[in-house]
């Protein structure tokens, strides 16, 4: 499939020139095309922020919801119609800050959605405040003395929760990122892909150059089924590893656990309530409650 099927035509894109978001947009379209996922079968769900505008630059179904709230509707969309491919995509502030509780519990719930997080370690749309992943000492108009909160480590948290799939990528490496995204999207259950992406306007610390100097790829010998090893790699701070940290293939997905698709594969919109059964249920109140 040609990645052009996802192109919108002439669109006013709200991102700054040189923003890492462009690269993610391009590589995601290529990934989906290579996986032969048609725009008609895809739902992009996002929250609020510059990264969360990505669905507007995609020719597909989308649900651009509230700040921090992409994961609950994404979960429900998958549960209501499991035949759709669902991607929940937003920035680090949205997913790890405002939506932190949903992040934790969506990992536990394990719906088959791909959670892509644009991680630029800063708030862009609100103009340069610290994000949950901002590095210690990072000075902003609000964190005037520099960040002193411990940076949030999404990978370590996900592995602690025994996530189904977790990876980290760098937008500067399109091919590697594409291969990681392919594996994430085809994973059954929840998959987190945290993508390093420089903010060229508000983050003068974590620049393109800084990322290039601070990243490396996990060796082929890394066993993604070894949770303890994955955790060790996730807490490395001097240099930041990229790649697939951890996969647990033995978890059942939320849309399967809800139990209503076992004998009937139809999505919810194709179903009608069974009034004969309802009459029987009402009848039970003659004798018992």
């Amino acid at each position, binding site marked *: 499939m040609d990645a052009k099927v996802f192109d919108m035509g002439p669109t006013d894109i709200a991102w700054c020139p040189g923003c890492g978001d462009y690269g993610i947009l391009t590589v995601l379209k290529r990934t989906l095309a290579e996986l032969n996922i048609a*725009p*008609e*079968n895809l*739902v992009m*769900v996002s929250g*609020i922020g510059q990264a969360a*505008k990505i*669905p*507007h630059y995609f*020719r*597909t*179904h*989308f*649900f*651009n*919801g*509230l700040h921090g*709230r992409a*994961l*609950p*509707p*994404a*979960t*429900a*969309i998958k*549960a*209501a*119609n499991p*035949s*759709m491919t669902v991607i929940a995509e937003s920035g680090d502030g949205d997913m790890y800050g405002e939506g932190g*509780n*949903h992040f*934790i*519990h969506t990992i536990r*719930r394990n719906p088959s959605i791909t959670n892509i997080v644009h991680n630029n370690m800063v708030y862009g749309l609100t103009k340069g405040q610290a994000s949950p992943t901002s590095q210690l000492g990072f000075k902003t108009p609000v964190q005037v003395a520099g960040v002193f909160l411990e940076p949030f480590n999404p990978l370590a948290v996900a592995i602690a929760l025994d996530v189904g799939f977790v990876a980290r990528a760098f937008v500067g490496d399109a091919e590697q990122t594409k291969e990681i995204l392919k594996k994430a999207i085809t994973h059954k259950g929840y998959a987190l892909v945290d993508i390093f992406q420089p903010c060229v306007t508000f983050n003068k610390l974590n620049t393109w150059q800084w990322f290039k100097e601070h990243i490396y790829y996990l060796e082929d010998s890394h066993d993604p089924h070894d949770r303890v090893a994955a955790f060790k790699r996730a807490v490395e701070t001097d240099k930041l590893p990229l790649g697939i940290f951890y996969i647990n293939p033995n978890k059942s997905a939320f849309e399967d656990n*809800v*139990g*209503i698709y076992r004998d*009937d594969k139809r*999505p*919810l*919109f*194709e*179903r*009608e*309530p*069974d*009034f004969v*059964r*309802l*009459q029987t*249920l*009402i*009848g039970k*109140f*003659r*004798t*018992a*409650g």
Partner: protein
Amino acid sequence: MGIQTVEGILTRMLKLAGCNVFATKEYMSRVRGGNNSTQIRVCSRRVCGFINRTDILIPLNKGAINHVRGRISADTVVFGESDLLADEARSGPFKFIDVPFTRIATDLGNRVYSNVVAVGMLAGLLGMKLPEVCDYVKQSFSAKAADVAQKNVQAAEAGFRLAEDVSRRADIRLDIGSDAGVKDQILLSGGDAVGLGAIAGGCNFISSYPMSPSTPVLVFLAKNGGDFGLIAEQAEDEIAAMNMAIGAWYAGARAMVTTSGGGFALMVEGLSMAGMLESPMVIHLAQRPGPATGLPTRTEQADLELALYAGHGEFPRILFAPGTLEQAFYLTARAFNLADKFQMPVFVLTDQYFVDTYYNIPDFDLSSVKVEKCIVKTAADYKRYELTRDGISPRGIPGFGQGFVCVDSDEHDTEGHITEDLQLRTRMVDKRLRKLESAKVEIVAPELYPNRKYENLVVCWGSTYHIVREAIELLGREDTSLLHYSQVYPLHPKTADYLNKAKKIIALEGNATGQFAKLIKLNTGIDIKDRVLKYSGLSFAVEEVAEALKNVLR
């Protein structure tokens, strides 16, 4: 065995024997113990309201008599254990009959059977037949081990045999006429009626967070929904619950949330999104006293204004407030159809009293219920927010048709894409608000009872219906009627006509500020000065309302 089991067995047994029954409970916010009470009314005609009078009291624990002291009088007969109650037993003015429930239970092997002994005694006093009682108790414990069921049957039988002796000692004779028709009626709670109504409305998705008193609806749908292809998910918080439910509607489900004040407060952000996305939504809001945590297990009608005005920005909504079990069923089903048709949030406002109250009613008529789905198959050039005369844009869903379904919590263009075209913004606001005008065509009329001609009109809404109705019967004034609203918003257009016919109007509400009266004033200009308000956390009682009306009408 707890008070709820006593209530369940006794009410169902009596209903099967042809008696009209009513039960309601008030309870403390704790897992075990405390002082809780259940009121059961047994009557030859149908009774559906909470009363203050207590004819028979069975105190099952120490402190129980003091707990309900305001509801007992010299005419009350108390059947209790003097050992257990000590001074309370002699605290009068009631007639106390000492009955050794615990000793009888202990003789059977375990004091846990004492409440069933009491059930048996009451069944005997109320003139039931022993085989019926034994059969029903046996059936109630059929899920338990055979010896447990057998012991409970023996306990009920032992209690039953006490009846003749205790009625002689108490000098009472209860003769409750039965009605063969009642036997085949259904006996259910307000929570059950909302749950059944949701299924009848085609609900197939509920996401919620447990919170008293709204939880019974979540429990009901989790327990019974499997047979109806319904997904019931306990969310991590009410924010997630509401956002999930909106996502579910987007993907073609018919979704609802059930919550109470503080939980709903967390849903408000999502509610506003439903307004912007033009997403259908059904919200069961079971009110309890606030602010904040308030009285978690008690009742109030103080969240009308919260439901009415919740959510930043301006968007339309519909508010139902059922007063009867029938209304709870039909209006909840209707809520799904209206939410889908008008693409807006529809509330079902109940409260603790309503959710936890049971009585018998005739079977629901499913032939009058229809699931009306308003989803369209999209064409390739589909626009989710097409500007239309009535404000309603045909609603597509992803995966049904060739078009793309794009929704955005930002202001958006007709395709659902973010926009800052401020002229279009104005048109979009107008479009969303036009839907309310469309929804006004289908407003449920208020019920006037009993007289079409009246001088005094008592205006009430929601759960107080049966209480006010019985109070007006008790008052016995030909010149006084009640006007009950089961749809509180948009307000019925004939409201001013009803009110203008009365010389005196009284607003009766379970809150401190007369919220519905304020809404009426806003909509009609009519200022209802006479108010009967209660906000102690306990429901109005029939006699209390009759007395209050008598005072106002003096």
